[in-house]
């Protein structure tokens, strides 16, 4: 760990961090005003129902939480599922992100398209794709049986299926966050370590890995919090036995119209999540995410407290041990296969990394490659193998004006809400990383909370606020795309803040200062120096914000009342009796459209940079 600390000392975050003055926090105002209007105020109003029964103050709803063990048990299941999902996502995503970060430009860009594939398949189609793929008569079981590896089909619909579905849905989030941080790491640093005598293992674990930690932390945080709110994937792929707390909340809201109790459960979930966030911050350090990390603190010898310092110490030993093991292993390999100048130098770790990386890519794109052939079926169900070949389902999607309108609306709402979320959240991310504001953990918790409160409650709360605003200002937020844009931008705030904070963590502020000293003003510096350097992070943040809106169903249903149809809503309606291959056709079209847009952008960019 010393290496990093010494580097930090040279980097000297502290030197560049001005003492907090009154106007340092100003850029936080837009995002907090926005969240106050669209989230805190509406949701708190709804949550006050949880301390009332029949209009009077009472704790009945909270007592009920502990009367039976259902809610606590379900909370524990939710935490367990989210924790394992996060663990697997982070471990599996890291080699993939590393592989992408170290691949050459061209290769990387085409591989990233594969990582993003799950994003373009609606969660409904994706989940049903897994339902078929993992089924008793599904291709995976059939192949394994065909190879003679299995006698009886494997039963996937339990914790295993749940994990597959959830990791698949959330891994792109982890990969993209890690990748955007890794892209800011100077490739010369591990080389410098090597010239100073570090072997591959030491150079990686003591130099590269600590520098990539902000991405790991941010990715893990986003995956964990997003996972807390999942319920459709676990219910369908868990065979019904995995009961997530979000589902209990939905039951209370929809089936029982008991918003007070739903609020109580939601508050239980929120508080638990915040406690975990606090411990995480203390132990691992948002270290890693915002300003001074536990590593810094222990080096400086002050602050951080026992837990933080202890964590950093243990972490340091852990990393040294892993580095040592890797190097001894490397030496062992060299004994078997000595390095000779006449054959190309291949390292084991690179091979392992590529194998893991490619496996992960295959895993991520598997449902998409299932959905494409299935969309050409002549049958009426998602099935493997598809029955016959025809474009019946494409005709259906193409001929329907509702599908077209829904597609256009989803794309425009997605882009506009993502831009809005970026505009208000990026300045906040800058402030939170650059300045030592008092109560930063509290600001962070508040910014993350839109991800933790279940969407159904946000949707109900938003409806009341919109209706109120409409009455007084006659804007027409309900049933309009504007209402949708605002709601979706609010949901995207946490993703943007966390992702941008992660890339800024490694940012060398001396570059900004160099620009200033050469006469550039702040705006020019931002535009010509800072933004280009953190481009990957900004792009990832934009992408997350876009996808949040693009795949969002609940708020779209509530706010639009069914008048302004978006793609997820259209898909959901269509899947009332069965999930038809029409949804697969729509997903394939989206996949093709988005991929070609990315290609076009890339092509134009390259053409521009050449000329």
């Amino acid at each position, binding site marked *: 760990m010393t290496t990093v600390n010494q580097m930090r000392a040279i980097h000297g975050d502290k030197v560049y961090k001005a003492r907090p003055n009154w106007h340092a926090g100003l850029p936080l105002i837009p995002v907090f005003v926005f969240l106050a209007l669209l989230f805190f105020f509406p949701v708190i109003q709804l949550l006050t129902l949880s301390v009332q029964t029949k209009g009077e103050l009472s704790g009945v709803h909270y007592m009920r939480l502990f009367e039976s063990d*259902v809610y606590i048990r379900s909370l524990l299941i939710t935490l367990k599922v989210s924790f394992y999902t996060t663990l697997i996502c982070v471990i599996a995503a890291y080699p993939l992100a590393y592989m992408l970060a170290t691949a050459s430009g061209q290769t990387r860009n085409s591989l990233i398209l594969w990582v993003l594939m799950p994003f373009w398949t609606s969660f409904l189609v994706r989940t049903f794709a897994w339902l078929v793929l993992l089924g008793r008569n599904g291709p995976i079981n059939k192949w394994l049986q065909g190879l003679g590896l299995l006698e009886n089909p494997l039963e996937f619909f339990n914790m295993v299926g749940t994990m597959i579905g959830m990791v698949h849905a959330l891994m792109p989030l982890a990969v993209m966050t890690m990748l955007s941080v890794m892209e800011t790491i100077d490739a010369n640093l591990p080389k410098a370590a090597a010239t100073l005598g570090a072997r591959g293992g030491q150079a990686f674990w003591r130099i590269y890995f600590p520098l990539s930690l902000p991405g790991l932390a941010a990715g893990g945080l986003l995956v964990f919090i997003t996972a807390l709110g999942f319920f459709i994937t676990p219910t369908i792929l868990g065979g019904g036995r995995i009961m997530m707390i979000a589902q209990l909340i939905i039951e209370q809201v929809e089936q029982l119209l008991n918003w007070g109790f739903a609020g109580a459960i939601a508050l239980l979930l929120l508080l638990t999540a915040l406690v975990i966030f606090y411990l995480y911050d203390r132990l691992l350090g948002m270290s890693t995410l915002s300003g001074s990390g536990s590593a810094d603190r222990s080096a400086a010898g002050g602050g951080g407290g026992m837990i933080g310092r202890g964590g950093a110490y243990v972490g340091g030993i852990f990393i040294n041990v892993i580095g040592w093991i890797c190097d001894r292993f490397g030496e062992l390999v060299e004994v078997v296969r000595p390095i000779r100048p006449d054959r190309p130098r291949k390292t084991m770790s690179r091979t392992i990394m590529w194998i893991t990386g490619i496996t992960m890519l295959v895993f991520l794109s598997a449902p998409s490659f299932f959905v494409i052939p299935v969309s050409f079926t002549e049958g009426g169900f998602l099935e493997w193998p598809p029955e016959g070949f025809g474009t019946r389902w494409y005709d259906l999607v193409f001929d329907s004006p509702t599908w077209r309108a829904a597609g256009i609306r989803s794309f425009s709402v997605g882009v506009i809400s993502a831009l809005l979320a970026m505009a208000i959240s990026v300045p906040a991310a800058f402030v939170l990383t650059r300045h030592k504001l008092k109560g930063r953990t509290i600001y962070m918790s508040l910014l993350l909370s839109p991800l933790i409160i279940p969407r159904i409650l946000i949707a109900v709360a938003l409806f009341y606020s919109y*209706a109120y605003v409409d009455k007084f200002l006659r804007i027409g937020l309900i049933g309009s795309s504007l209402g949708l844009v605002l709601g979706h931008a609010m949901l995207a705030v946490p993703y943007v803040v966390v992702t941008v904070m992660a890339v800024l963590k490694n940012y060398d502020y001396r570059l900004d200062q160099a620009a200033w000293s050469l006469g550039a003003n702040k705006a020019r510096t931002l535009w010509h120096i800072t933004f280009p350097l953190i481009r990957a992070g900004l792009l990832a943040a934009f992408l997350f914000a876009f996808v949040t809106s693009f795949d969002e169903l609940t708020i779209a249903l509530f706010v639009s*009342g069914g008048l302004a149809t978006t793609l997820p809503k259209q898909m959901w309606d269509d899947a009332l*009796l069965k999930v038809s291959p029409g949804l697969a056709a729509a997903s394939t079209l989206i996949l093709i459209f988005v991929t070609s847009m990315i290609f076009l952008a890339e092509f134009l960019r390259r053409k521009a940079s050449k000329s």
Partner: protein
Amino acid sequence: MRIKSAIDRRAILKGAGIGAAAIAFPTVLVPRKTRAAVQLTVRDPGGPYEKAFTEGLYKPFNEKYKGQCEVVGVAGKHEPTSQIKAMVDTKTYTWDAALISQAAHDLLVADKYLDVLELKGTAYDEIKPEYKTPTFAGNDIYAAVIGYRTDKVKKPPKSWADLWNVKDFPGRRSLRKYPFDTIEEALMADGVPKDKVYPCDFDRAFKSLDKIKKDVALWWDQGAQSSQMIKTNEVDIIAGYNARLQAAIDEGAPVALEWNQNIAGVEGWVILKGTPRADWCRKFIALAMEAKSQAGWAPYLAYGPSNTNAFKFISPERAKVSGSFPEHASKALLIDNTFWGKEKDKAIDMFNAWMLKG
């Protein structure tokens, strides 16, 4: 050359941008145009209902009242109770009337969110009394039935007791992960006669469920999941809704339905309290109650018409898949919503606790 290519790029970008904006602009920003003096918005469950109701209800209504009122169907969420409550609370009538289950109706009417129908003297009178209340006009009957794969199940199950009998009726099973229907099924499987199911004896029901718990391969939650699982033969025997299982049969899956002891529920029209277009809602619901209208949508939807006179206009093959077909209706247990209204809270807690238990 360089300058030219730069212009090209800009032109392309600009062109693409303007094009996209031109396509997006009207649909995004301009609200839907209304042709008639009044636009009535009614909520239906979407999907197959959309086509069925357009043919059977919306088109006839719009022709009858051309120029005066136009009805538009919009698809809403599965149980839109929260949405209706929010709309009435804030007097924001995105919808004027809605098709909802009787259970949802009971939840809403208790809190005075629905308007009285006052439809005496219309086709509403032809509807069986058990399918309607003063605030609820039954439109269609759905039923929880036993579905099984004819290619896998040699001896067809004839009752819930058979579904519970794993030894004599082997096969992978699936039940609904929800107390409604499942509790009734468990009681009937344990030998409770149809007319003694309500009020449900929960202890007995859960004891009965205990017997089958380990043999339930999958618990389904989303309706679409039940159709998918029987179609791909993920399970051999399933307790599910007739129309969802019919969707698999219509696609050629070797599946048969057993209607004995089917558990029937009603979906019907309600008017949101306080909507300024309540009178038009009444005219619309009156039309929806007519046998001719119901026969109009029946070919597209396997749920049964509440007005049994509609069977006069429906082909016999199609009539047989309807929940309200007299032969099925005579075997049915009609869900007692008054009972569930009182016990729902408790039942859901107990059921979830039972699911989580080992």
